[in-house]
């Protein structure tokens, strides 16, 4: 199998995005709860976040002129890969404390690993990232490990 991941690409493993500071608003919590079809009152009232609410905090807010034709902007955490088509893989989150309206949080994304595998239809590159959500005091809130697959 041809080596797709050059030493230069492998050297990107371990890099992190600049920390993003977010203020959790009740309004944002309510929008998320309604749009996902939640039934629990605590979610619909925006008291507390459903388990995947933080997913939106990992989405970068980019200026319009940085968005490509497909709508997406460049993900600066992930180096340009020789395989271009990115697919969502998996997500695993460990929860330490609930996210509540009024919380001030720090969100950091890290590139944990890049590795390749031979798939049924050709080579695949697995991109493993970690989303770390902490309080401003540095207490852990949650850790999410995600994998993306490039083919």
């Amino acid at each position: 199998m041809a080596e797709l991941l050059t030493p230069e690409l492998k050297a990107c493993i371990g890099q992190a995005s600049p920390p993003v500071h977010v203020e959790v608003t009740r309004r944002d919590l309510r929008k998320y709860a309604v749009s996902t079809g939640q039934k629990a009152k605590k979610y619909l009232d925006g008291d507390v976040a459903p388990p995947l609410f933080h997913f939106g905090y990992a989405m970068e807010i980019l200026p319009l002129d940085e968005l490509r034709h497909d709508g997406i902007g460049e993900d600066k955490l992930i180096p340009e890969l020789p395989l271009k088509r990115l697919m969502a893989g998996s997500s695993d989150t460990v929860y330490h404390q609930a996210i509540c309206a009024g919380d001030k949080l720090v969100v950091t994304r890290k590139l944990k690993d890049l590795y390749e595998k031979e798939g049924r239809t050709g080579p695949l590159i697995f991109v493993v990232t970690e989303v770390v959500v902490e309080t401003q005091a540095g207490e852990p809130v949650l850790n999410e490990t995600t994998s993306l697959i490039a083919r």
Partner: protein
Amino acid sequence: MLTYDAINVGDELPSREHTANIVQLFMYNAAIWNPHRIHFDHAYATEEEGYPGIVLDGPLQGDWIGQVVTDWIGEDATLVSFGYTNRRAAMLGETMTAGGKVEEKDDTSKEVKVSLYLQNGDGEVTIPGHAVVRFS
């Protein structure tokens, strides 16, 4: 009220159907700030990316199986961990069924492990998942 002692390995969690319409999908992508055209532009999704329709977001489907757990435990237990895998795409208009089953109980930690699934109308699992909840 759900108690640790009343749970048995093999118990089914209450299932629920979800059929997102274009308004719900628009609001979801606005809420998470996802501008990817495959989630709102039918011509783009079909003609340029080759999908059979507008694509449901994986994390939205992940959320639906998360709700199986959070609705099941209510305030009676705490979510310790939750994960899901995107196995196959689902399109706007499909009715998806979210459900789960108790897989393991740990009497020492009072933790319960459940498996989760989201399946389409053909019975194919699009998003399998898993979660651990802890009773006090």
